[in-house]
């Protein structure tokens, strides 16, 4: 069990983690999600006692890591697959770590077998691919047969076979009653690996819930309805009929309609009553990726813009047509992934406002109640981009 209470970390003026409280329970794979720079790795380092929190604390089994008896036998971690001296053999790398933790050398050969690196055990890790490095890092985490495991981006660079292996490994470790805490950016993988999610953005907790609850809470299931492309008036007709019946209708980019608040059979009935033919009527269940994107869209620090290529623009020869810019999903289009929020007029997601008492009785803001939440102002306003194809603006 990992428990963080009011965890805060500042680097000078920058606040990396702010008032973070969560629990990671044994017997489940807990996914740790958040945009780049949201404080995931900082949190992991604080769990391992590598960085000292500015305020608050994080404990493993009730002890801060640095006071944990026999820590390396209780906690295993993969922080950075590249954190290996390239000139050292894989086996010697693991051997030095095993000796450091008082683990017999026999165990080194065991874990090399577990991660499938026996063949290259005597090779310098300099020549390892990213995937092999990840395997070596996972081997190091498994060395002490620990009850608590932390993995920071363990599947980056792995081949499909390796990804499947890691997925099954995580699940198996959790099934044995261990605490497994995994950060990743690969949503599709998280969706099938994790049981529970902790999502942070800009160093603050955005969500701490079961993965199924997370998806349904942060996305609206909707129906996609398509009327014949050739008859736009049918589309208008259906839109007004559905809106009258209490549904929420938004245009999709490809001309279809996104309908919320009405069950599929009801949509079909309404269309029939309005004498509108349907080319498509399909249920749409949001993916973890969509739910995640919607939750974190306001907490993304590093966002790409669409490539104007203005710096490369040359005078077009007379008569030539400028190249058509095809919009890239997600690029320069904040909220592209985001269906509108389930609640009307609400914040697009539950960015903490003010200082609510933490779910674990966390203290209010470290540094006294008078201190304003540095992120309260930064809570994102709904995007006000002029692009009319975006669902938010259609509201």
């Amino acid at each position, binding site marked *: 069990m990992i428990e963080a209470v009011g965890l805060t970390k500042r680097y000078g003026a920058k606040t990396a983690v702010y008032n973070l409280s969560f629990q990671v329970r044994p017997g489940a794979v807990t996914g740790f999600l958040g945009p780049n720079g949201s404080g995931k790795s900082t949190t992991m*380092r604080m769990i*391992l*006692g*590598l*960085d*000292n929190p500015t305020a608050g604390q994080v404990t493993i089994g009730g002890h801060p*890591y*640095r*006071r*944990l008896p026999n*820590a*390396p036998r209780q*906690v295993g*971690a993969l*922080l*950075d697959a*590249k*954190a*290996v*001296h*390239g*000139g*050292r*053999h894989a086996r*010697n*790398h693991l*051997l*030095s*770590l*095993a*000796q*450091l*933790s*008082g683990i017999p050398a026999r165990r080194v050969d065991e874990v090399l077998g577990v991660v499938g690196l026996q063949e290259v055990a005597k090779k310098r890790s300099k020549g390892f691919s990213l995937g092999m490095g990840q395997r070596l890092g996972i081997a*190091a985490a498994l060395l002490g047969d620990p009850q608590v495991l932390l993995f920071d981006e363990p599947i980056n660079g792995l081949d499909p076979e390796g990804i499947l292996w890691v997925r099954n490994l995580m699940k198996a470790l959790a099934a044995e009653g261990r605490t497994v805490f995994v950060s990743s950016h690969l949503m599709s993988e998280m969706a099938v690996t994790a049981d529970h999610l902790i999502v942070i953005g800009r160093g603050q907790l955005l969500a701490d819930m079961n993965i199924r609850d997370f998806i349904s809470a942060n996305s609206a299931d909707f129906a996609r309805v398509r009327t014949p492309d050739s008859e736009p008036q049918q589309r208008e007709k259906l839109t007004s009929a559905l809106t009258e019946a209490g549904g929420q209708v938004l245009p999709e980019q490809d001309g279809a309609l996104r309908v919320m608040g009405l069950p599929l059979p009801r949509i079909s009935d309404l269309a029939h009553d309005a004498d509108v033919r349907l080319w498509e009527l399909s249920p749409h269940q949001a993916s973890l990726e969509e739910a995640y994107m919607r939750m974190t869209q306001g907490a993304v620090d590093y966002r790409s813009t669409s490539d104007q290529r203005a710096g490369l623009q040359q005078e077009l020869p007379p008569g030539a047509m400028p190249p058509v810019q095809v919009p890239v999903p997600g690029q320069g289009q904040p909220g592209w992934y985001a269906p509108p929020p389930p609640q009307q007029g609400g914040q697009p997601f539950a960015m903490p406002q003010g200082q609510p008492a933490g779910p674990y009785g966390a203290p209010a803001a470290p540094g006294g109640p008078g201190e304003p939440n540095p992120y309260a102002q930064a809570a994102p306003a709904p995007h006000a981009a002029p692009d009319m194809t975006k669902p938010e603006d259609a509201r």
Partner: protein
Amino acid sequence: MATTQVVRSEWTKIRSVASTVWTLSLAAVVTVALGMLISLLSRNEWDSMSTRDQLFFDPTYTSFAGMSLGQLAMIVFGVLVVSNEYSTGMIRTSLAAVPQRGTFLFGKIAVATGLAFAVGLATSFLAFFVGQTTLGEHSASIGDEGVLRAVIGGGLYMTLIAVFSMAVATMLRGPMLSLGILMPFFFLISGILAAVSATEKIGRFLPDQAGNKIMQVVPPVDDDTPYGPWGGLGIMVLWVVAALLGAYAVIKKRDA
């Protein structure tokens, strides 16, 4: 318990990287070879030397002339032992395994120090005997007064240089920054301070100049150094201890 674990682990680490062998053998080869060269030159120039110089000729110290260059390889060894952890990021894995950072730091430095002492002592003896053989009739004998002290002192000097570098590298973390500060410190600053009479007296208290004293058997002309051979080594030890305390304070508090 934790100490023996750290020592065993550090021994595995230090013997499994190529830089250990390279830096230490370079330190030995450069020291011995350059000492031999200077000894050879001294022997050939003997007749053209002034009587004063002949009178104050120190065959032991002459055979250690290569140490001024060989110590640079020792500095690199000391820096790399520590900064390898930081430049690769291993330090996080290591400190996660040994949350007692003092134990980790001193275990690591102890292993590297032991190795540096073994190599330094062997180098010192080798440099002495090779140098004396080259000097021929002007040579000193290991049984002469103060000679054994100077030879063992040569090994201690090289060891202390390495330890000082380890401590500085722990504070600075990066290999480039550490070498960029240590190399000029030992190669330029003490030379510059010694060249100007006003600062000469300050320069004498730098670790390398103070430590050098232990390798002298015949004191130079007009020697007014306020400390003896062991006093000089003591000053160097104080520098090393201060650097180690700094390293300990830093690693204890700093985020890894």
